[in-house]
């Protein structure tokens, strides 16, 4: 959207010194097949893709992983620690991802609970601090908790990634005021991650000033993932442009569209 909109030049998204023109990050889970997944990556214009370690199996020609079809020269890979229930497990998996030569970027997920898949704030903070000290670029997935977000950026995480609603729930952002506070306090990019169900959710996230969105299930499980990826990109772009354009404040009363000043009587 940088040059295409009239007189509005947006700044790129910068995470840990790395520039991205796309603000839509995609996942790799739940796609019905790799064809649909690749079509969605393309339609979303995504530049960063997050991948659970279990799905990474590059060197094995007999690999069952759907990821072998991805051209990783086109996308920045963001390994994640999904499946880890404790800080210790997440740290081990992050180290493994780095030792495999994947990336020293890690989307940190410490999720002890299977029903709501809500992240453990204490475990996440502990693991984040350890990994930052080991030189990792850490992108932590968190509940929309402004104090935690602040603590994380203080230990040196590259982003904070508050959830809109539980992973895969498609509930959108039932309450975005906490995320607004996180954005207000942020010194690092805020990526709204999880729960986005429709383009309007992505638009809202960007309108309130989020720097990026991560969307997986809403695209992967759509009847037409590529079309949904494109719609998601349009919603996100609209929201971002609205944010850059500067929305009007909400007023308690009406404000006439045709003001009475200067009216000829």
């Amino acid at each position, binding site marked *: 959207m940088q040059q295409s909109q009239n007189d509005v030049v947006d700044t790129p998204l910068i995470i840990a010194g790395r520039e991205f023109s796309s603000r839509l990050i995609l*996942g*790799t*889970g*739940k796609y019905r097949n790799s064809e649909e997944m690749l079509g969605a990556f393309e339609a979303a214009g995504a530049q960063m893709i997050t991948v*659970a*370690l*279990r*799905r990474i*199996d*590059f*060197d*094995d020609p*007999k690999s069952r992983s759907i990821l072998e079809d991805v051209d990783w020269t086109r996308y920045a890979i963001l390994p994640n620690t*999904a*499946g*880890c*229930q*404790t800080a*210790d*497990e997440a740290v*081990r*998996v992050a*180290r*493994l991802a780095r*030792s*495999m030569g994947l990336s020293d970027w890690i989307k940190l997920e410490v*999720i002890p609970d*299977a029903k709501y*898949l809500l992240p453990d704030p204490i475990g996440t903070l502990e693991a984040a601090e350890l990994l930052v000290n080991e030189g990792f670029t850490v992108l932590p997935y968190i509940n929309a908790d402004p104090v935690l977000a602040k603590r994380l950026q203080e230990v040196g995480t590259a982003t904070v990634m508050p959830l809109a609603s539980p*992973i*895969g729930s498609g509930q959108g952002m039932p309450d975005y005021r906490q995320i607004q506070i996180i954005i207000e306090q942020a010194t690092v990019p805020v990526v709204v991650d999880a729960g986005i169900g429709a383009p309007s959710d992505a638009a809202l996230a960007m309108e309130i000033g989020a720097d990026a969105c991560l969307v*997986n*299930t809403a695209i992967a499980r759509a009847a037409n993932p590529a079309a949904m990826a494109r719609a998601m990109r349009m919603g996100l772009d609209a929201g971002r442009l609205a944010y850059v354009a500067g929305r009007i404040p909400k007023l308690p009363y009406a404000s006439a569209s045709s003001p009475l000043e200067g009216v000829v009587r």
Partner: protein
Amino acid sequence: MNDVRATRDRLRANLNLYVLTDRQLARGRGESEVVEAAIAGGATAIQLRWKTGSMREALIVGRELKQICARSGVLFVVNDRIDLALALDADGVHLGDEDLPLPEARKIVGERMLIGYSPPTLAEAIEAERLGADYLGIGPVYGTSTKADAGAAVGIERIAAVSRAVSIPIVGIGGITAANAAPVVLAGAAGVAVISSIVAADDVREAARQLRDALGFAETHSV
């Protein structure tokens, strides 16, 4: 006689939670009691480790275990001893690098049973697949107190390296508990093999259940 081909088809699933017996760690409980509880908690494979004691007694214990496993559709494997495995008509035998080499072992058991192998190095893991091993035990993942000669921990890095290098299933072993099992399967193992974290537990069944939960969580929630 076993049909080893059918067993191979579901081997990956059957290696998810692999419990090895250890009389010294069982706190006075018999092998059958421990194995019954472990299976009730979700163990998918059992290995009879008979390190001390007579072969006569091993045969008696082994027959009980074989029966318990068969009843639950759980894999029954014998550690080290091909003769005992054959006498018990076990589903498999598990060999280390000080036991009979794979080609000789295969010559003896033919296609009657699975052969598991614990290769000490990555190169030997690749070689073991070539020599016809059905699955591999890789470790010690985290370092272990159970096995005196197990050597230094190889980490989940070794699990990842072996799982990328071979296409037969592998299980991680050594120091694995419910709290650190997930990285092992996330790194590519079909499952984990455990001794003390289940056999020495206060509540064997509950310990097995917790491990299965941790493994299931890692499998189903990594998207």
